[in-house]
Structures are given as structure tokens and as C-alpha cells.
């Protein structure tokens, strides 16, 4: 089985889906000849041509809006937004349209599109290149939000996302693109959307995280009897797996790299409080970025949770 990094795994998923299904087309800035600024679409232009790997003008709302038109017409567009910080001009199209095509038309039209975008800290890039604003999208009924954490699950989840009949936002942690390699099967396999996985078993505390923060969380878990849940899909998220673990451990630490206030961790915490509070032995804790304008490279290491901040929370919660 080939050993791939995340860029290669995503590339493979795209390639296989394009081979399998003529209606899958790629569009975005620099996705064609250049193969994407992270090389995620490398080789696809040569293999599938400019008709299916479309280098668009620099216009994010236009890209997503056009992808909606394509999806409605019957294609399965996979749009790339170059960085998550540039998805904001497309939010109107996502919130007002992609998410509502099916509901508005009472099922006559649907919008099976995927929007891929690199997100998150750790690459020391200029301002706006390391955003992690998944919570905005998770507050939008009608779209799904998927965040892979390893090459293997990136491929499987992307295949599922492309085949999903509803719009999916697919967030790729730029920090992970080349950080880890693992065996990734060639050929079809898919991981169902909406299912979390237990990345590490344990019984005294449950750490919940996703995407880029998974690896720091796993590191922080070492030496503790900690269970680590990798959500993989944020919307809709897998209550069942979470609640099962909470019932077992009674202690929860949520880790994310977005600012604390109104981050996705708030929803997790609130849901746990609502549904399984009586199992809790300690307050649910959140280890997150601070409620500040995201700093650039020189200060980014102080901004998002690191291993020591996660450990500190684990230590604290274990005191209860």
C-alpha cells in the first residue's frame, strides 16, 4: 500500500473520483496548471485538461456561486478556496444559497458541491492565511463540515464528501499537509460523514478535538489514561461517540485552535451539559486560542493551544 502524506492522499482521492465520474470538476485559483499553491491538485490538469481543472479569475464569491450553478445543473464541482481566510467573501453564497438550494426548492434542485480549503495555524504565513473559523459554517444548517486529520481519513472523507448529495465544506489543516505519512489504500474506500473515531482509548478523561489539533492532543495525552476523540465531521457531529466516552470518563477537555468565544467547542460543551451532565465529574474545559485578533507569525505560537496548555488542562481536570 502506498505511504502518502495528506497532500498526496487528497490528490489521489480527487484523481480517482475524476476518473470514476465525469461530472466531477475542479475549479479555483491556481488549481490548474500550477497544481494549487500547496500542490494538492498537481497533475490533474495534465490528466483531465483545462475543462475539468478550471483556473478561475480571482473571485471567491464567483467561484462558489459558479460551483452552485454547476452543481444545480448536474455536475459535482470541487471548488478550492486558496486559504480559509479568503472564504469570507464566499460566505454569502454558502449561507444564502449552497445551504438552501434543496430546502428552497423543496427538493427539486440540490447542490452536491465540495468546497476544499486549507485552514489553521502552523505555517507562519502572512495574515489571513491561518484562519480556523469552522464554527461559522457549523452554525449553518444545510451544509456539512468535514475536517480530516490524517492522510488515510482525508482520502476516505473526501470521497464521501464528493459523493454526498449535499454541500460539504472540507477543511484541510495546512500544518498537516506534509507532516505525517501513512498507508493509504489505492482505489475506493470511503469513511461515512458524521462519524467520529476514537483515536486513543482511555478511561479517566475524554479529549475531543479535530484536524490539526489532534496530533498535539495525542501528544498531550501520553502518560495519561486519556481517551482522544477525533471528530472528523463537525456538522453534523457524532453525539453518540462523544456521549459514550463521556459516560465512561466523566471528564472532558475540548481542544481547538479557534478563539474560545463561540468556537465549536462551545457547542460540544453545551451539548454535553444538556445531554450527559449527570455523568460529569468535573466542569467541561476548553483549551482554545484566545479571544484576540489572530496574530501573525511572531506570535502565533502563543495564540493556539500547545501541548503544555493541553496537559495543564488535563492535570487540572483530573484533580476533580
Amino acid at each position, binding site marked *: 500500500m502506498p505511504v502518502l502524506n495528506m497532500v498526496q492522499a487528497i490528490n489521489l482521492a480527487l484523481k480517482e473520483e475524476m476518473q470514476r465520474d465525469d461530472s466531477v470538476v475542479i475549479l479555483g485559483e491556481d488549481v490548474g496548471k500550477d497544481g494549487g499553491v500547496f500542490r494538492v491538485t498537481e497533475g490533474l490538469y495534465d490528466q483531465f485538461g483545462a475543462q475539468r481543472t478550471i483556473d478561475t479569475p480571482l473571485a471567491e*464569491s464567483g467561484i462558489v456561486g459558479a460551483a452552485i450553478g454547476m452543481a444545480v445543473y448536474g455536475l459535482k464541482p470541487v471548488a478550492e478556496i486558496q486559504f480559509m481566510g479568503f472564504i469570507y467573501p464566499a460566505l454569502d453564497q454558502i449561507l444564502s444559497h449552497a445551504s438552501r438550494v434543496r430546502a428552497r426548492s423543496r427538493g427539486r434542485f440540490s447542490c452536491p458541491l465540495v468546497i476544499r480549503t486549507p485552514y489553521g495555524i502552523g505555517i507562519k504565513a502572512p495574515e489571513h492565511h491561518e484562519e480556523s473559523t469552522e464554527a461559522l459554517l457549523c452554525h449553518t444548517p444545510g451544509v456539512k463540515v468535514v475536517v480530516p486529520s490524517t492522510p488515510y481519513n482525508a482520502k476516505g472523507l473526501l470521497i464521501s464528501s464528493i459523493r454526498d448529495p*449535499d454541500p460539504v465544506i472540507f477543511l484541510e489543516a495546512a500544518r498537516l499537509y506534509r507532516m505525517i505519512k501513512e498507508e493509504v489504500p489505492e482505489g475506493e474506500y470511503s469513511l461515512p460523514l*458524521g462519524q467520529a473515531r476514537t483515536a486513543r482509548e482511555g478511561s479517566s478523561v475524554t479529549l475531543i478535538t479535530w484536524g490539526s489539533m489532534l496530533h498535539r492532543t495525542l501528544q498531550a495525552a501520553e502518560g495519561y489514561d486519556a481517551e482522544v476523540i477525533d471528530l472528523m465531521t463537525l456538522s453534523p457531529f457524532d453525539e453518540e461517540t462523544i456521549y459514550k466516552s463521556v459516560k465512561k470518563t466523566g471528564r472532558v477537555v475540548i481542544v481547538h485552535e479557534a478563539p474560545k468565544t463561540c468556537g465549536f467547542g462551545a457547542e460540544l460543551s453545551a451539548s454535553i451539559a444538556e445531554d450527559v451532565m449527570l455523568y460529569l465529574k468535573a466542569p467541561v474545559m476548553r483549551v482554545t486560542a484566545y479571544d484576540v485578533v489572530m496574530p501573525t507569525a511572531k506570535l502565533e505560537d502563543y495564540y493556539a493551544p500547545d501541548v503544555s496548555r493541553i496537559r495543564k488542562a488535563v492535570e487540572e481536570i483530573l484533580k476533580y
Partner: protein
Amino acid sequence: MPEEIIESFQIRRLDILNEKGEADGPLMPSLSDDLIKKMYELFILLRTFDRYALNLHAEGRIGTYASVLGQEASQAGSALALEKSDWIFPSFRESGVYLSMGFPPRMLLQYWSGDERGSRVPDDLNIFPVCVPVGTQVPHAVGAAAAAKYKGDKIAVVSYFGDGGTSKGDFHEGLNMAGVMKLPVVFICQNNHWAISVPLKQQTASKTIAQKAYAYGFDGIQVDGNDVFAVYKATKEAVDKARQGGGPTFIECVTYRMSDHTTADDAKRYRSQEEVDMWKSKDPLLRLKLFMEKKGLWSEQYGKEIEEKTKEIIEKEVREKESTKDPDPKDMFTYTYTNLTPRQVKQMKDLEV
């Protein structure tokens, strides 16, 4: 190497049928009598529907409604130039386009009552539901055109929007992409001179709206939007060109919003009666009728017949709409995603009480 002229443009305007009902010979397209009668009958349909809708609103029987009065030629004239296989992406003031394409009037009334089943477009129509956020439908049309081109479908895609819509970023991003990709799409601007209370002059300093097309590398033409022959001809040429791979065209239909912006608006606050009266004399229906009279296509009796037939149709549609039971509240869950999420399953139970 002096200062030199490196590019020049000319904006054309097409007028065929004047206010007296006289048509310009050489420019007049050859239209069958049946088609001309169809134009007239659609005008009556649009106007009747509009009158009923305004009344229904006044009686509290439907919600906010956006009148199409005065824009019949722009809407019916352009829609008639389309094939059923073409795709249409309207804004919110295209009741006339929907009706001209055969969309059931009762569904439009449902839509304007806040019943989303009115937006379940019949399977044989490729027209998108009403788009409320101004300008946002433009990129959808562009994407659909890209999809059609990719699939090799010989169709045209049409996007409608108002003068206000041309100020939006999505208008720009969509038209630019259509130009670059040379897509089979026709952009139809109904320049009705007002965007709620904002007059054209405060919407853009561009002398014509048609000229905006040149920013995107394709042709724009201005037509008299109250002249059904001019609208029809320009649209027909544009969709034919689109189907033949000639790329996009922009059509500015110069017309006028005779009513308030919607039933929630009071246009007297911001525009003069003189202006409205001036446009009354340019009425698209009147000049079509005069033309038909001259050609022997219109008689008092024909006029009466059509009016009555149309009234009957609309009244039947109103009755049907009003006898429809309200939608099931669960619908809001059913259609958000293809399948219910676990959380939705739990939430839906609330509605069972």
C-alpha cells in the same frame, strides 16, 4: 510613441416598436401572427396576475409582493425568445418570466405567501426559484452555463437582474468569469430606473448599463425595454449566439417600475408623479395593441375574450392556492439535508406534540 487610442467601443440601442404602435421595417423581426398574439396574451396574463396579486395582498391573503407592472415587454419578450431546454436564473421581480415560461400562477402566489412549496419548480421547467439577495443569482447562471458547455448541451442560460443588481460584487464576478470562459449565457438587466428609492443616477455614473459589458470583453446592447419586438429580437440573437458558442451577451432593457417597489413600499416618498406619468405614455401593452390593431390582429372582441379567459384562469388559480392546506411544519426538517441528522430527529419530536 505618442499618446494613442488603443481601443474603442460603441454602445448600440435597439428600438423597433414606437409608442404609436409603428414598427421599424428593416429592424422588425419576422414574427408569426400567432407569436404576436401570444405576446399580447402574455401581457394580459401578467397584468391580470399582477392586479390580482396586489389585491390579494391588500386583503391580507398573500404576503409582500413585487409588482411587474410596466415591465411586461422586458419579461415576456425575453422569455418568449427562449427554448424550454434553456435555463433561467431570475431575481425576485420576474413573475412575468415565470408565467411566460408556463410556471403555474398558484405556485407564484404560494411563494409570495411564504409557502415554500411554491418554489418546487415543475420538473419540466429549468427555472430556478426566486432569488432574494440581489445579484447573487448571476454566478449561478454562469456556473450552469459552464456546466452546459462542459457537457456539450446546446442550450443557453439566462440571468435576470435589475439596475440595482449591477452594483453588486457578484454581478461583476459572474460577468467577468463568463467573459473569460466564453460561456453560453445571456445577462438581461431590467433597468427600471429604481432600486427601491435609489434612482439610476445614484446607482451608477455609467451613462448606459449596457456599456458595463465591455469591462468583461463581450458585447452589451441597450434596447427599449417597453418594446416587445426589440426585447424579443435582442434576446433571440443573444441566445442563438450563445448556443452557437459565441459567448455571453449583455442586454439592457430600459423600462420602468410603474408600481411601488413592493407592497411594503410607498414610492410617493421619493419620486414624482410626473415621472410616473411620463412613463405611462410608454406603456408596452398599449403600443403592442396599437400595432396589432393596425395589422388586424386585435379587435374589441378578441381583447375582451382574452381578458375574460385570463381572469378565469387566474381566479381558478387563486381558488386552488387558497384551498391548499398549509405546509407540514416537518417540511423544514425534511429538506434541509437529503437525510435527517440525528440532532434533527430529536428536534423534530417537538412538532409531534
